[in-house]
């Protein structure tokens, strides 16, 4: 029988949680702005508000990182430790990129990439009306912030229940954003539907895993689970099943085989800014959560899950790199590439080299760096994808990219840089990322896995080159050629930052890598 509850007023570390709170407050404020501010002003205010909020949160995060000691905050719900700061910073940086891409109105006849009125039936007079009136959804910014908020919690969640709630917090806005593309709306809505159904399935399964883990450990906190495992109490089947089911949800969010099915469709259907943001931020958050859950909570089981993840990683890399070869739609191609990257990241996860061990580069640091490089390249690539257009919409078919090197060498060169970074060619950040991940995996005693991963990355390199070849070595077919529209400052800034970052991190990664390596100590 349950004993009656005795309540002690909970305590909150306001300063430590301030980044989260700032984002949340800004999101709520955004909703109010939607309700109160006249339509013409909304866009400016919302964009500014979102950008400001993210910047402030970033500042606070860094401030805390510098001065505050790592600790468990908010009654053990959120662990504000090195990795948390690390991934928060990453997420916020990516969030900033997302805001910038969302705010882009320079391309496409001065209209954003989002539907003028998502509630209207595609092709209906209502929709035409809305287009004519140049309506636009400025809700996208609050949605972005909400999802960012969820991701930040996800990355720092110290108990499994919070983990689940966070998943939903950041997924639901993304589902909606996915369905809001301005063009090819049927496709977009369909993508949203698929994303939603599969996503909620995954989170439901994960929730069941959480329940089982709770049943095993009698508590939600990762520390409890860890303690229970070390104590060896409880029934093992419960534990193992719980671990499996929990990993499903996380792997889904990462986009690992066999839970990758949503990726290509969603990437293709969602508006490019959303795709860019989703591809990067979701992966980052999910990887962060995965690391925390499995290193902190289920560290005792590592011999079980290392092998599991090794297999998953291999499958993921294999499928991602091979299927991508067949793609002709650049967004689809990037989708499969992101699957492949998920595989490479998992290789790092398998390594499971703790910062405690006498290795200067822990898995967490390596993976964080990998995510950073991947994020930069992805944002850059999607910024360019937004710029290459024809007939009003984006020209996502590779044919439209042929001869881009002729028409716009600078852009083509940038795209090449990003592609090379994806492929992990030296002198780009991607190379250092791969090296770091592989090194940590090998140090963790998984040399054979590294070997496989390398073979895969050779295959992967092939389809990135397909893009490069199309741009430089193939002549444009006038019928389908895409023209480059010069975007506003927003996208340019994203583009420049990504490019510079990719090159600089490729040449002198020392500083950042050091930062990451130092920060990679989990606490329970």
């Amino acid at each position, binding site marked *: 029988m349950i004993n009656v509850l005795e309540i002690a007023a909970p305590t909150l570390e306001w300063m430590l949680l301030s980044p989260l709170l700032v984002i949340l407050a800004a999101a709520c404020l955004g909703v*109010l702005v939607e309700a*109160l501010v006249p339509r013409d002003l909304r866009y400016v205010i919302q964009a500014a508000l979102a950008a400001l909020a993210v910047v402030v949160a970033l500042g606070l995060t860094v401030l805390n990182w510098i001065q505050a000691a790592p600790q468990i905050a908010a009654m053990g719900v959120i662990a504000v430790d090195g990795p948390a700061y690390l991934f928060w910073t990453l997420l916020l940086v990516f969030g900033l990129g997302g805001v910038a891409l969302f705010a882009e109105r320079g391309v496409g006849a001065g209209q954003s990439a989002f539907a003028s009125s998502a509630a209207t039936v595609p092709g209906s007079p209502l929709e035409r009306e809305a287009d004519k009136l140049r309506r636009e959804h400025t809700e996208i910014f609050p949605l972005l912030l909400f999802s960012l908020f969820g991701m930040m919690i996800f990355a720092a969640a110290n108990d499994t229940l919070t983990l689940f709630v966070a998943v939903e917090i950041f997924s639901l806005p993304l589902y909606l954003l996915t369905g809001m593309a301005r063009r090819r709306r049927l496709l977009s809505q369909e993508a949203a539907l698929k994303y939603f159904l599969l996503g909620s399935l995954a989170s439901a399964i994960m929730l069941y895993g959480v329940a089982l883990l709770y049943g095993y450990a009698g508590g939600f906190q990762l520390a409890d689970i860890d303690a229970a495992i070390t104590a060896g109490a409880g029934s093992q089947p419960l534990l193992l099943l719980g671990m499996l089911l929990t990993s499903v949800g996380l792997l889904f969010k990462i986009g690992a085989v066999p839970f990758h099915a949503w990726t290509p469709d969603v990437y293709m259907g969602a508006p490019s800014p959303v795709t860019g943001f989703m591809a990067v931020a979701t992966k980052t958050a999910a990887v962060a959560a995965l690391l925390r859950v499995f290193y902190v909570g289920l560290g005792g089981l590592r011999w079980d899950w290392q092998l599991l993840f090794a297999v998953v990683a291999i499958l993921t890399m294999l499928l991602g790199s091979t299927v991508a070869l067949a793609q002709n739609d650049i967004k689809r191609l990037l989708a499969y590439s992101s699957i492949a990257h998920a595989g490479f990241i998992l290789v790092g996860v398998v390594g499971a080299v703790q910062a405690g061990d006498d290795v200067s580069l822990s898995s967490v640091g390596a993976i964080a760096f990998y995510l950073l490089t991947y994020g930069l390249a992805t944002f850059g690539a999607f910024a360019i994808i937004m710029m290459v257009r024809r007939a009003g919409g984006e020209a996502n078919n590779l044919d439209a990219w042929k001869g881009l090197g002729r028409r716009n060498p600078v852009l083509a060169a940038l795209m090449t840089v990003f592609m090379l970074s994806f492929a992990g060619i030296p002198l780009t950040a991607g190379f250092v990322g791969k090296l770091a991940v592989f090194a940590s995996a090998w140090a963790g005693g998984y040399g054979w896995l590294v070997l496989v991963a390398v073979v895969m990355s050779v295959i992967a390199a092939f389809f990135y080159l397909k893009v490069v070849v199309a741009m430089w070595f193939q002549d444009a077919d006038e019928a389908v050629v895409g023209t480059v529209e010069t975007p506003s400052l927003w996208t340019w800034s994203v583009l420049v930052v990504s490019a510079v970052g990719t090159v600089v991190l490729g040449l002198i990664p020392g500083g950042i890598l050091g930062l990451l390596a130092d920060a990679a100590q989990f606490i329970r």
Partner: protein
Amino acid sequence: MNPYIPIVGMVALATIFVVISMSLSLVLGPRRYNRAKYDSYECGIQPTPQPVGGGRFPVKYYITAMLFIIFDIEVVFLFPWAVAYRQLGTFAVIEMIVFIITVFIAYFYVLRRKGLDWD
């Protein structure tokens, strides 16, 4: 005995009563076939075929349903808080105020976007 047992008893009793009386009427009532009678009623005009499952109805109702869910969930949170109000003390009150305000923001948004209007 478990306090739910009377409820079960009542349910059983009511069910028996309802079923019996309904079947009774089936027994007592006459049977006269008439095609028009067995047609679904539409004031005499030719009935518009209605797909099983109700077919389509205004989105308004969906919206109502969604709003209902949201606010119902809010109530779900209010109930336990209200019951434990005295034990929980000030902090909980503040929390609740924040919570209600947050919900109000959403409510306000819907209100302003005419989500609550029946044109």
